[in-house]
């Protein structure tokens, strides 16, 4: 190694950590491929984009701050119901303001919940998130007069985006719109993880007991990222409502909370792209396997999860990174 000028070295190195690589450029260009290659898969693609955004929101807390959650559907569902109720009960179907409000509502509840979350660790943390998720589900079921209960909320209809683009049957609008929101959400998340705040989160993940000894009020950091993550999950939920015109209790279900964690670990945590890759692999595999056999597809998904753990302990993206010899 050639010695670098003492001050330039760390700056250059740190700048390199957050620089856009050509992998990323290629990846985002590739997200446009469905328009050309799989035009009949655009609705699936839009749901993949939504799941990816949701998985990114979980990656922010799980992958970067080490908060394991089995109840993040709480915020996804809040966003979904916010948009749904706005349209069905108040007649407001404007998509962009709806999304912002979905994020705000979910973020607000996330902020309140974060006071509980930072009090517990390990198994207790997982179980508290799980408990809160179930409480939200049961609450939505109990408030059938508002939410429509298990039948789902009826009467949701979205206006055209910026007054021009109608949500069409083929999913052009849905995918374009979801992709743009995903990209924006990704940019926000990327900015966060590459900031000094992101560094503090990694510090918490790496060694939470050291944080107070360097003067860090880490529970405030945790509350902050939890709130941001909740807001992002809410946006993802709102997006689902807007692109499907439906909201059912399943947006709040334990299944959804568990699936998103599975997607994230599958792809690889703490990398943002792992969340996206995991969502793609999980949902596409599921779609294709269920197409072959609608009854037993989860056998193969289960096998996939086991194989990934045994042979790619850092997720699929971690495995790929290792193959190409890149630093984590």
């Amino acid at each position: 190694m050639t010695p670098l000028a003492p001050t330039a070295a760390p700056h250059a190195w740190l700048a390199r950590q957050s620089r856009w690589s050509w992998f990323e450029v290629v990846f985002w260009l590739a997200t446009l491929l469905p328009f050309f290659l799989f035009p009949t898969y655009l609705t699936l693609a839009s749901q993949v984009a939504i799941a990816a955004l949701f998985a990114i929101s979980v990656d922010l807390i799980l992958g970067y701050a080490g908060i394991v959650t089995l109840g993040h559907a709480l915020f996804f569902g809040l966003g979904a119901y916010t948009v749904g109720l706005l349209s069905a009960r108040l007649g407001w179907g404007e998509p962009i303001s709806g999304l912002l409000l979905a994020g705000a509502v979910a973020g607000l509840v996330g902020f309140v919940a974060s006071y509980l979350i930072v009090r517990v660790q390990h198994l207790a943390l997982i179980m508290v998130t799980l408990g809160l998720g179930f409480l939200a589900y049961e609450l939505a079921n109990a408030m059938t007069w508002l939410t429509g209960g298990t039948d789902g909320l009826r009467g949701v209809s979205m206006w055209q985006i910026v007054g021009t683009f109608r949500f069409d049957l083929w999913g052009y609008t849905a995918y374009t719109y979801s992709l743009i929101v995903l990209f924006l959400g990704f940019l926000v998340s990327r900015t966060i993880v590459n900031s000094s705040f992101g560094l503090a989160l990694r510090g918490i993940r790496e060694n939470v007991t050291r944080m107070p000894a360097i003067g860090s009020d880490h529970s405030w950091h945790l509350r902050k990222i939890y709130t941001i993550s909740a807001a992002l999950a809410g946006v993802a939920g709102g997006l689902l409502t807007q692109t499907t015109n439906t909201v059912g209790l399943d947006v709040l279900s334990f299944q959804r909370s568990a699936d998103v964690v599975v997607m994230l670990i599958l792809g690889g945590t703490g990398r943002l792209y792992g969340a996206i890759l995991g969502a793609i692999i999980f949902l596409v595999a599921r779609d294709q396997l269920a197409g072959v056999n609608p009854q037993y597809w989860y056998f193969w998904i289960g096998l996939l999860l086991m194989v990934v753990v045994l042979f790619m302990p850092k997720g699929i993206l971690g495995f790929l990174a290792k193959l190409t010899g890149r630093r984590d």
Partner: protein
Amino acid sequence: MKTKMMFATILAAGLSWSVHAGAQETVKIGVILPYSGPFADAANQLQAGIDLYIAKHGSEVAGKTIELVKKDTGGPAPDVAQRLAQELVVRDGVDIIAGFALTPEALGAAPIATEAQKLMVVMNAATSIVVEQSDYIVRTGVTIPQLNTAFGQWAFESGVKEAYTLVADYGPGHDAEKAFAAGFTEAGGTIVGADRTPVANPDFSAFVQRVRDANPEAVYIFVPGGAQPAAIGKALSDRGLAPPDTKIFAQGELTHPEALESMGDTAKGIITTYHYSLERDDPLNNEFREAYREANGGRSPDLFSIGGYDGMHLIYEALKKTEGDTSGDALIEAAKGMAWDSPRGPMSIDPETRDVVQTVYIREVQEVDGELQNVIIHEIPDVKDPLHGTQ
């Protein structure tokens, strides 16, 4: 904008070509069901009904071949059902969408039927409002008010004056509670108490004890099929709530064959309302039942099976009537007013509401030749869903 138009043109061209090419000899039916997840059993039974109909009547109709495209929601998941319906139309070029064991999934897919102008056959989802969501929906299953309003009326006429209702705390349960209470109170009866049990409820003892405390003349029960019927049945008998001291009324799920096997003699005397009665002695039904058991390793058909079976019948007959025209408008016109003899008994499609009209059977669990059966004690013919037009 320009490129977007270009995509759209290419896509539309591609689509119309594929749909056109397909339309020559096959009729594609997209089946949307929760094949995996908590409602997998419903999906499997419904699919078995569909398969039996095709096996029996061949896959050729009106000169075309029937082809099924199955899609799993893993649900209840209205958003997935919506997407799958969209994909079936756009990607697979189906002519008809069918299935729908669960109300939220039918509601999710309904707008697609309207937009794509495709016939949508709801084979089970049992909430009244389902058929109102699109002009292209027709239902071949049952509606909960249809079964329970008439049942409530009959219950009062049979001499019961006071009843307690205990239903699962979700859409269908709420509907059942409302429908039974409406029929019962309109006839002159009184509801002395009403409780709702959590949908994912492993243990009923607390609720049953509440019923016991109220000591009503009769209790009306609605629980989803699966594990809960046997569980609540046993909890009732453990608390000494059993006919004839306390009458037990329920929708037919409570006494399905597996539940009867598990409950044993304690099930005797339970009275249920249903549109399909397994042991009803009728040549059509006997043949259907035996063929079904043979094809499914001895498993008996249930409400899902008969919904799927009759749903296929409706599709076949409608296609014959339109001579193979698969447009949604032609098919829905053909379906309106259609009447036929099903293994469940005579049934028809209401030309106004496109909803199912059928006989409601009141049955009592009795021992016949050493086996517990639901024996029909009363029939109410040509029952329509009482809620249409009232909401």
